[in-house]
């Protein structure tokens, strides 16, 4: 299964990056000893850590044994370690994802070249929400010297050879960065992009909302006239007397708007300062 291979590959990269120690394991499985800071992010046990720190204990690092196939035969495993099957939705995988997200929010990287110019790279999540939801992940790079914006840059950047340390002989132009300006620039670009997209979903949701609201109002109106004509189940009923039909109508309307009204959420998720030899397009 390619999905499971992807997970295996992802976890290997993750544990490599966070500085875990790889122990021998069966092929296709991972046995890793994780540093304490990573441990805290991958297992939810705050009280344990509180105790460890209060008592000045020094427990050995946790060892995880992760398998990526359900039918895995395990020959040797360190004592006291239980194998865990990793799937896309499993608890551990969720924690790994969220740990990666919080550790990878910001970055500063360099291309290996002698003349570099700085770019601010943004990853932005755009969500269309009504009673359902669709997300898009967009990436932008702003040339900090010219303020020119490039779209769809992550695909480009992944192909380049980027490094975390500044190359020794690199010339870097000092550029003052006005964060507010950079942010408003990227948000403006997102707004243009969003406007260009297909909005039939919003039209559909909007029309449906109007129709449903009309239907509600019509219903409650007919209940009202009914109530005037003869004794209504609502108003004569003792238990409901404090809960008027108007209150019910208001609540149903509010729920309907809450659920159906089309909304667009724009959320910048990650930001990197990237020094490149050539523009990312």
């Amino acid at each position, binding site marked *: 299964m390619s999905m499971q291979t992807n997970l295996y590959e*992802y976890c290997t990269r993750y544990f490599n*990056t966070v500085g875990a120690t790889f122990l021998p394991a069966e092929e296709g499985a991972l046995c890793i000893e994780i540093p304490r800071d990573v441990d805290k992010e991958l297992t939810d046990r705050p009280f344990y850590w509180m105790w460890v720190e209060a008592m000045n204990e020094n427990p050995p690092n946790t060892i995880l044994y992760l398998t990526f196939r359900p039918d895995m035969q395990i020959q040797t495993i360190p004592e006291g370690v239980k194998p865990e099957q990793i*799937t*896309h*939705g499993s608890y551990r995988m969720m924690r*790994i*994802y*969220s740990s*990666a*997200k*919080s*550790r*990878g*929010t910001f*970055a*500063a*990287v360099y291309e290996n070249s002698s003349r570099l110019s700085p770019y601010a790279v943004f*990853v932005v*999540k755009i*969500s269309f929400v009504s*009673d*359902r*939801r*669709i*997300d*898009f*992940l967009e*990436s932008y790079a702003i040339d900090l010297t010219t303020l020119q914006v490039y779209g769809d840059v992550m695909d480009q950047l*992944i192909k380049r050879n980027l490094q975390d340390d500044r190359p020794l002989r690199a010339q870097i132009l000092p550029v003052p960065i006005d*964060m507010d300006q950079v942010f408003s620039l990227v*948000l403006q670009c997102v*707004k243009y992009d*969003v406007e260009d997209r297909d*909005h039939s*979903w919003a*039209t559909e949701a*909007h029309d449906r909302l109007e129709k449903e609201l009309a239907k*509600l109002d019509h219903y*409650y109106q*007919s209940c009202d006239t*009914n109530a005037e004509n003869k004794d209504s*189940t609502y108003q004569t009923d003792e*238990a*409901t007397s404090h*809960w008027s039909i108007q209150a*019910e109508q208001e609540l149903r309307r509010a*729920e309907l708007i809450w*659920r*159906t*009204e*089309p909304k*667009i*959420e*724009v*959320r*910048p*998720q*990650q*930001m*990197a300062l990237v020094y490149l030899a050539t523009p990312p397009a």
Partner: protein
Amino acid sequence: MYQYHEQLDLRKQLTERGDMPAGKWSLFQLAYEAEKQSLSSSFEDFICLDALPNLVPFPHQIATAKRVVNELHGRALLADEVGLGKTIEVGLILKEYMMRGLVKKALILVPASLVIQWTRELNEKFSISAFAQRNEWSWTTYDILVASIDTTKRDPHRSAVLSQDYDIVIVDEAHKLKNKKTRNWQLINQLRKKYLLLVTATPVQNDMRELFNLINLLRPGQLGNSTTFNATHVDSKRLPKNPHALRSAVGEVMVRNRREGGGVEFTERLVEVVPITLSKEEQVLYDTVTNFIKDAYSKRREAKRSVLSLITLQREICSSSYAVLGTLETMQRDKRLSENEHIALSDLYHLAESIPNYTKVNHVIDLVKKINDKVIIFTEYRATQDFLLYMLQQSGIKGVLFRGGYKRGKKDWMKDLFEHKAQVLIATEAGGEGINLQFCNQVINFDLPWNPMRIEQRIGRVHRLGQTRPVYIHNFSTQNTIEEHIVHLLQDKIRMFEMVIGKLDVILGIKAFEEDLMRTFMESTDNAEVRARLSALSHRVQNSNIEQLASV
């Protein structure tokens, strides 16, 4: 056209840190990929299915979940017939909304006895961290909360719940909301919620208005107001005026999967009658007891006294002579008995005691040995149950007991013992909600209840989704006794064993059915009359089915 929100958490984070931290490029990429993984990349796709590789839902369950999310916009009545896995559908919908970031706070209201089970299933099957409500603080402490509806509707819980907004409210056994004047209904009506799922196998129990009340919680006005609903849709209490119009109006808020038809594959049911001829002594006992009952029955009816103990006795004598002893003993203690009756009863007792051989029990032992696999034996009587266990153990067969009175933990334990240690489970009741015994495919009905619903419940424990083998049902039928007629009636006439529960909800007046049976047996003078009267009874049942099928 739409609201536009910019969320600037990232900017805030930067301001708080003062300057930009220099993180690693590889982590930046990992974070980007993680973000991509959890994206809802289309409106229609179900992303939760990939996240739950250990759960393999049935096609109809996925279809239902998708329909609720994509077409019914998250407010729906889930009315699948019993045994089709409504819990799975609910779990899928909840998980999907959570993964899409549309639901954070959820309230799941279920009968008190199912709170733990729901909590467990959501955690285990769907990796949803749901908590069971324990006290007043639970309401605000946990995002996903499972609570008993009867607790919730009382203060202080009620006001705690009403003061919060819920992204989704789910109500299991929602037929408890059929009456608008109840506190249950009013609680759900007043809750502020975005999505709402009502779950019940029986949206209409007695009255069409129940359906109206349920649907009005979901989408007020869907069926018009109560006056127009009565005028356009209600013919009689239980019959819709225009089934097609009603079905299409209801279809916009309700999903109902049936057992038959549709993509739901059940394994085969193979029903077999095991005819048993009593030994001479047993036949004598049976005849004597039956004559005594007939005699006493007419006397008691004249005197307008209760015939309940007689009915019990008559049914027990079909089960085993052992089962009769207890009842005979109790009856002897009745002070209103005449001298003659007293003597008759004690004679009967001695006769029952002196039976040397138990034909029916011997048949069970032979059959269990022949099957050589897990078997569930059902009987109506505890005395028979104990006796069977004893006799099985005497022949070296391991068995465990299962009774209605057992607490949940003991039931689970007995189930585990049966699964791993014993060959036979001897049960007096169907086991109750959530006890699923799909690993077994052999059922012996040592005696049959006179209530068809209970028979279906018995079989339903074994013959449900997840059963991979054909299910064998062995019905014991003692010749020349009432039992022979009962088996014939239920199996051949009503075709009980081929029928499905959904249609059965309609054999209304189960109690009347049982009384009819008793009267038939007591008042008929010979076998021919019994047969004729039973055949009339079965016609009545069949007709009520047709009536039901015509409706929703």
